[in-house]
């Protein structure tokens, strides 16, 4: 289904038929489906928002801050996941990699007494290397990314248990052994008069960078080319292997950053953290209109998909509607997004 590393059957139609996209109105809708979906959820949020003292709770600045904070970790992961999925790959290890990164960050500071900067550098490097290794194994041995990253998930959880010694690590702040540098707790605070969560800021900043990288750099074009038609990409001189390894390094990097944000927000490192985050991130990417067959997708769609899932959960809770409905709605949205994509894909294929 996905992640055909190495060889692509030459007869297969290239999924990136860009000119068709411009002509088909349905394709245009699909391209921006998550933005449209997000707008619908926002309108729904406004209509159904509880009112307090004449103000809509849903639009209250602290509520919007809460929504973005709640999705910051899965959102950061989804940014990296977008690159991977555009290359027709998948990365199932990111949730476990988040757990590993949170344990590593906590352990380096609390148990080994490292400062902030060395800790951040080490954790980010470790995450990036972990992702790159998976990309290398998948590319070198022509293995499905699904299998390699499924193994990576187990390995990351196992490593996290080893690092943490089968326990969780509480992060307390102060000087001396057993304490983390107080500055690290910034990640759990809110700036500008206690309104803007730092975790949300990290997500927003990375979202801007990821959008620019995908849309304006040569690397971004390579990612689309590799996912669209690997053979053509190879023939036109694109270093396909290196691009593939890079996108997995990127998801590893993003998972490490999300893990650092997690440790800072919750003063905690645990091997169990981040369980299932990979699925939330994949859901956001799919809702965002990125094709699992590769070659097509947008970063703005992923961002809108993430925010949409967060806004949906928020408005349902503000109205005291239970979690079951939230899961049902999310499932329905994923199916709808996939159906729209399939319909458009088939139309393009017949032209």
């Amino acid at each position, binding site marked *: 289904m996905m992640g055909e590393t190495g060889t692509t059957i030459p007869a297969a139609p290239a999924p990136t038929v860009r000119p068709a996209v411009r002509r088909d109105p349905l394709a245009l809708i699909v391209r921006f489906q998550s933005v449209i979906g997000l707008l619908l959820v926002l309108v729904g949020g406004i209509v159904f928002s509880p009112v307090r003292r004449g103000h809509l*709770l849903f639009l209250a600045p602290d*509520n919007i801050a809460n929504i973005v904070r709640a999705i910051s970790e899965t959102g950061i992961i989804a940014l990296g996941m977008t690159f991977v999925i555009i290359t027709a790959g998948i990365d199932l290890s990111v949730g476990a990699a988040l757990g590993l990164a949170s344990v590593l960050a906590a352990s380096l500071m609390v148990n080994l007494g490292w400062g902030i900067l060395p800790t951040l550098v080490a954790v980010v490097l470790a995450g990036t290397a972990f992702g790159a290794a998976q990309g290398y194994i998948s590319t070198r041995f022509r293995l499905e990314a699904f299998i390699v990253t499924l193994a990576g998930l187990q390995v990351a959880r196992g490593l996290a248990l080893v690092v943490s010694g089968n326990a969780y690590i*509480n992060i307390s702040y102060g000087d001396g052994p057993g304490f983390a540098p107080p500055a690290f707790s910034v990640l*759990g605070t809110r700036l500008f008069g206690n309104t803007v969560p730092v975790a949300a800021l990290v997500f927003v900043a990375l979202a801007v960078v990821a959008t620019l990288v995908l849309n304006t750099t040569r690397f971004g074009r390579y990612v689309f080319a590799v996912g669209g038609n690997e053979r053509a990409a190879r023939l036109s001189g694109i270093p396909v292997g290196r691009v593939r390894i890079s996108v997995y390094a990127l998801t590893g990097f993003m998972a490490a950053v999300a893990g650092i944000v997690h440790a800072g927000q*919750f*003063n*905690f490192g645990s091997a169990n953290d981040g369980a299932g985050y990979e699925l939330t991130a994949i859901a956001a990417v799919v809702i965002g209109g990125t094709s699992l067959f590769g070659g097509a997708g947008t970063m703005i769609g992923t961002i809108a998909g993430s925010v949409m899932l967060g806004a949906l959960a928020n408005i349902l809770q503000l109205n005291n509607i239970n*979690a079951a409905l939230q899961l049902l709605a999310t499932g329905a949205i994923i199916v709808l997004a996939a159906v729209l994509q399939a319909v458009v894909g088939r139309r393009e294929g017949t032209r």
Partner: protein
Amino acid sequence: MTAKTKRFARRAALLAAPLAFAAGPAFAGQIAQKCGKDGHYVVAFSQANYAEPYRQHVNNDLIALAKEIPQFELQIADGAGNDNTQTSQVDNFITQQVDLLLISPFEAAPLTPAVARAVKAGIPVIELDRKTVGTPGKDYTAFVGGDNYKIAYEAGTYTAKTLLPDGGEVAVLEGLPSSTPAVERLNGFKDGVKTNAKIKVVAEQAADWLPDKAETAFSAILQAHPDIGVVYASNDMMAAGSYLAAKGAGKETQVKVIGTDGLPGPAGGIQAVASGQWAATFTYPTGAPEALDLAKKILLECAASVPDTVTVSTLAITKDNAKDLDKKLKF
């Protein structure tokens, strides 16, 4: 309070408001920002995880009891066993400016900042069953919960005095190793049985709170120690597993099973004791009545202070009271 003094009090409060604001949210000598007998109050409960029988039991208890208080509207959110989800739910409750927050944190340290934000927003916080980091009465309003050590200690002394007064062999099934309740219940029981020197704890196995693991573990224990007289399981589900193992070995009359939690319903310990399968189970109380009593004091009676720790005691469920309790719970 007459109308006149009430008006005076309100004016005084208005004058004092800027001062009080600087001092923190708990002003005018009362815990709640808004209180009184005639109000309508949203009491929010942030539950760690619905997907555990014990936590379902707590929810049901709270829902049933809150219905009897017309001024209260209870809202429950499922933290789904995820710190980030539970944090965002607490944040949403703060946005909604709920009148009181009840919380059973999934994990202590991760939920501490969210609780601190609620307290800072002037919302009284009662922690149920599990605590966040800090001191009750200072970092949050109060803690209501059972004492795992004491409950298991009582199960130990019950074994020592009533089940095996002449001594014998005992096995213990532990919960998830290194989790706080598992450790406390294990130590409590072992200290309890020490009151009878003729009792020997011959086996101690972890079964992670799960019935299937308990059945496997206890089957193996029975192979190695065929004369075991009592098995203490640290929760009801593991007790159910041990009973199956004893039955499988044809020793269900020889081995007396003790559970913990005392859950109602078909899978719970109360019916198992009533039907004679187990010897006893020791309830781990939900704390729901006590927590709602505190909520009433804070919101309806405008209390200036409440006890910061309420330890709820256990009830031993044995053949003497199980049948009556079972009937009562079925209504």
